[in-house]
């Protein structure tokens, strides 16, 4: 499945006392997920665990909503089946700040299982999901900004994404429009780009996620040669590893061969 889903939760916006009440956490966690906390209680505060799972569930919802617009977000129905403290711990560097706890897992909704990568940082929980466990084509990043105004956050996260796309492609003038189902879509002029994106903001943080996996069908639909060139161009740019949840393996040629 080609889509993108991310979500962030800023600790500054969490009501800790409320989160710890059953009235609140039972609206987010299923009974097995409440029981699963015992395995993580030495590493994660319960309120952080609740919002970590929320961020994974919301990411999965956004990922699937792009494909199935009729889906509604019922947190309890998005079930975290596995959650692990990642072996990548210590190998990542989030824009100079200490990454405290990278986590991987998977989340199930109906017949769909998605993989998740998250981290809990000093002020923030951040999650991304993908249908491919390797996350090879998923690009994401987070940033702290000065404003809590939602309109400014919305503008800032778009600028943040455009800057990264420009850095990768040299292209400027890419825009975002909401489609009829209120899902954000990238455009280059009048042409819709087959790159799914997901945007999030909370507190003073903003985050984006996009997926560069281009399937054969999409290549055919959007002029194969043109998009293969863009794809190779994007992937030939050495990614500088800003985000903790991206592991770019293989050359651009290997990636292109994987999605012929």
């Amino acid at each position, binding site marked *: 499945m080609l889509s993108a889903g991310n979500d962030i939760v800023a600790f500054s916006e969490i009501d800790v006392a409320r989160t710890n009440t059953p009235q609140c956490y039972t609206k987010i966690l299923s009974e097995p997920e409440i029981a699963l906390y015992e395995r993580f209680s030495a590493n994660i505060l319960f309120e952080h665990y609740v919002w970590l799972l929320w961020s994974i569930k919301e990411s999965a919802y956004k990922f699937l909503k792009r494909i199935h617009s009729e889906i509604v977000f019922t947190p309890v129905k998005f079930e975290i089946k596995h959650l692990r403290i990642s072996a990548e711990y210590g190998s990542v560097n989030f824009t100079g700040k200490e990454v405290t706890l990278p986590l991987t897992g998977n989340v199930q909704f109906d017949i769909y299982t998605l993989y998740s990568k998250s981290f809990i940082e000093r002020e923030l929980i951040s999650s991304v999901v993908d249908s491919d466990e390797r996350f090879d084509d998923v690009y994401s990043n987070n940033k702290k900004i000065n404003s809590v*105004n939602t309109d400014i956050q919305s503008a800032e996260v778009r600028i943040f994404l455009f800057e990264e796309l420009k850095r990768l492609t040299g292209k400027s003038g890419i825009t975002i429009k909401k489609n009829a189902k209120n899902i954000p879509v990238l455009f280059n002029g009048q042409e819709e780009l087959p790159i799914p994106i997901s945007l999030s903001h909370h507190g003073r943080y903003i985050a984006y996620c996009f997926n560069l996996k281009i399937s054969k069908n999409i290549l055919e639909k959007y002029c194969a040669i043109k998009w293969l060139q863009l794809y190779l161009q994007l992937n030939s740019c050495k990614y500088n590893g800003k985000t903790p949840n991206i592991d770019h393996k293989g050359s651009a040629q290997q990636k292109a061969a994987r999605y012929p």
Partner: protein
Amino acid sequence: MTRQEILNELKKVISPYTTNKELLAGMTENTDLIRDLKINSANLVDIIIDAESNYNIEIDYDDADKMMNVGSCIDIISQKLAQK
């Protein structure tokens, strides 16, 4: 309570979670909580809990997932009040 009375009460419940006070003042049954009032999805849980306290009702997750616009919120609250 009439639907208009519930709507007026809902404005107070929602108020702490939106900075768009102008849109809140003009809120109708068609107003979308996330798209129009720019309420963060994480705050929807707060709104549900505040509504439960305010009306002394219990909203389970099957009901909660329908509470995306003001009209559907009023539907759920009306049903729960009628069941009391």
